[in-house]
């Protein structure tokens, strides 16, 4: 087994692209990767002994104050580690999973970085090889809504506050509409990001909306009162689920039920499309976590692999946040 970075002119680029298409991968797809600066994104293939592509993953690199950071690509939920496990027996499957994790852990350890923090997909449970390579394995959480439930059950699973907010929005005449107006969505998202001083990657959001998003891979709802647009929620669809990627609201035109109603419509649309789950893409931020929790999803953990050099750890502690 070997791991190789796939550049545009790599001899394996075509095989790699076919592999991604065949397995309906999103965050390794060319369309998604194009939303980032090419120099900052690294797409990797995992090869078997016959040099066939059997897996892939992606990560993001940037430099800040002479420190090198390796992270999950911004706005992607994880590094989309995907591989075809050829084993048939349970023990064979477990061992192959272990070998893949081992190969990844060794690969990442060989890179030079000052800060390393990547999220693994929810189905990757075994992080022991990373621990053995002296990475720190941590858990993060998301909420998943099971869309096989009826609309009535989904409604009943909402907290009473969420139900009240949605009813209030309806009573006050808010219109919750599916939107293809990328600029409007972007403006609303940016308003929220600016408010929270988290607008560093606004260009990536713009690219996701203008270059990546299409009717076949994403959708958004906006809340409107007359001519005023109050809130939006943007979701992408992949692997049988819909994932809330970002949203926002206008604090000059606030309504308690605006964003909640957009989210509720996003959930209903995902259900109508026959998707299996609605994923809130998690949050470890206390207030956001509570907001998501009240939609009544199931708490699911996913792994985060971390390795921070002492100087950066100290600086981040002083700064009190993540680098991106």
């Amino acid at each position, binding site marked *: 087994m070997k791991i190789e970075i796939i550049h545009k002119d790599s001899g394996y680029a075509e095989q790699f692209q076919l592999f991604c298409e065949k397995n309906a991968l999103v965050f390794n797809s060319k369309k998604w990767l194009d939303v980032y600066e090419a120099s900052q994104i690294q797409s990797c293939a995992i090869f078997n002994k016959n040099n066939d592509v059997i897996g892939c993953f992606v990560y993001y690199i940037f430099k800040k104050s002479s420190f090198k950071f390796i992270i999950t690509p911004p706005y992607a939920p994880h590094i989309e580690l995907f591989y075809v496990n050829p084993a048939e*027996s*349970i*023990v064979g499957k*477990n061992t192959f999973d272990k070998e893949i994790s081992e190969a990844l852990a060794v690969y990442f350890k060989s890179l030079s970085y000052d800060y390393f923090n990547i999220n693994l997909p929810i189905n990757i449970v075994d992080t*022991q090889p990373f621990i053995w390579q002296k990475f720190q394995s941590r*858990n993060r959480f998301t909420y998943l809504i099971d869309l096989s439930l009826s609309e009535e059950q989904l409604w009943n699973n909402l907290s009473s506050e969420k139900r009240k907010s949605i009813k209030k929005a309806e009573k006050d005449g808010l219109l919750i509409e599916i939107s293809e107006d990328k600029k409007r969505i972007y403006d609303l998202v940016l308003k929220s990001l600016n408010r929270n001083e988290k607008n560093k990657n606004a260009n990536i959001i713009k690219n996701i909306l203008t270059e990546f998003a299409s009717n076949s891979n994403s959708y958004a709802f906006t809340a409107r009162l007359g001519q005023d647009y109050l809130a939006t929620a943007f979701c992408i669809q992949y692997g049988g689920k819909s994932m809330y990627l970002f949203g926002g609201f206008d604090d000059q035109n606030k309504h308690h039920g605006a964003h909640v109603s957009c989210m509720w419509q996003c959930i209903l649309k995902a259900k109508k499309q026959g998707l299996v789950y609605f994923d809130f893409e998690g949050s*470890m931020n206390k207030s956001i976590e509570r907001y998501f929790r009240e939609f*009544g999803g199931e708490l699911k953990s996913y792994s985060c692999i971390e390795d921070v050099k002492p100087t950066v750890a100290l600086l981040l502690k002083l700064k009190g946040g993540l680098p991106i």
Partner: protein
Amino acid sequence: MAEQHIGVFAGEKWLAVYKDALTMMGIYKDEHQLIGAFYFVNTKKFGLKFIKLPPYTPHCALFFKHESKNVSSELNFSKEIMHSVCDFLENQKFALCVLAFPSGIKDMQPFFWKNYKVVPHYTYRINLLQSIEVIQSNFDAKNRNAINKAIKEQVVVRESSMNKESLYHYFSQSLHKAGANVYESELKAIFTEFSEPSNSFAMQAFLDDKIIGTVFCVYDKKNCYYLLAGIDKEVKVQGINNLLVLKCIEKAKLLSCEVFDFEGSMLKGVEKFFRSFGPELVPYYTINKANIMLELALKFKKRSSF
């Protein structure tokens, strides 16, 4: 109530092993209604207060009942409980806290928010509702070969007929030889006060009537846990431990247990051995927190946990 939710590790006899060393905490609703519990051990070392698990116990046995029908309320309730447990531990003013939680406890966010390091650990479990043929067919071929070799070498496994005191001495010596930490009084109490046929068994491997390996398991109505093992490393016969595990699995099935739990290991070699039995990998969480000076020291010594 605790035994019903947690099983053997919350049973009176198991808890009695630790005598007064155990701090048992009830979780109450509306101040009076007991709805859950957990436990830990408070110790002092170099004048510093440590909160940790009792030795030979896999987790803090946290459980709680909830009666909400609404999913969102259930989530809120579970969050509230975890916040309360976290706040309680915070108020203990410890220098070091290291606790593991049962695998069913998933929501560790309140600990994350209080700057605990939440670290996944793993155990392996075999579903004993499958037939023994299916279970064995899931073994790694190398494992099956090792078992066959041991049988071919005339290794015989049968249930231990040693008395409790002798079993304790056997495992005490065996653990010392392996360089493991041995908690003598607790180990002794497990054999002499806790163990009886209704909650545990020991399987022993013999070669020419000489004991060459022993495995000790504890069990309840649902689970059988692989707790202790000792092998005579001077005997150069392959597959002794493999055969012992197979016999323990068979015994657990006879006892109508539904799950055989290897009790996990983060040691590479041990993990590989467990994995060769084709079990399911099950994560559970530990929380770690230390005061700043201790944390700095532990960052170097126990990097993956701090």
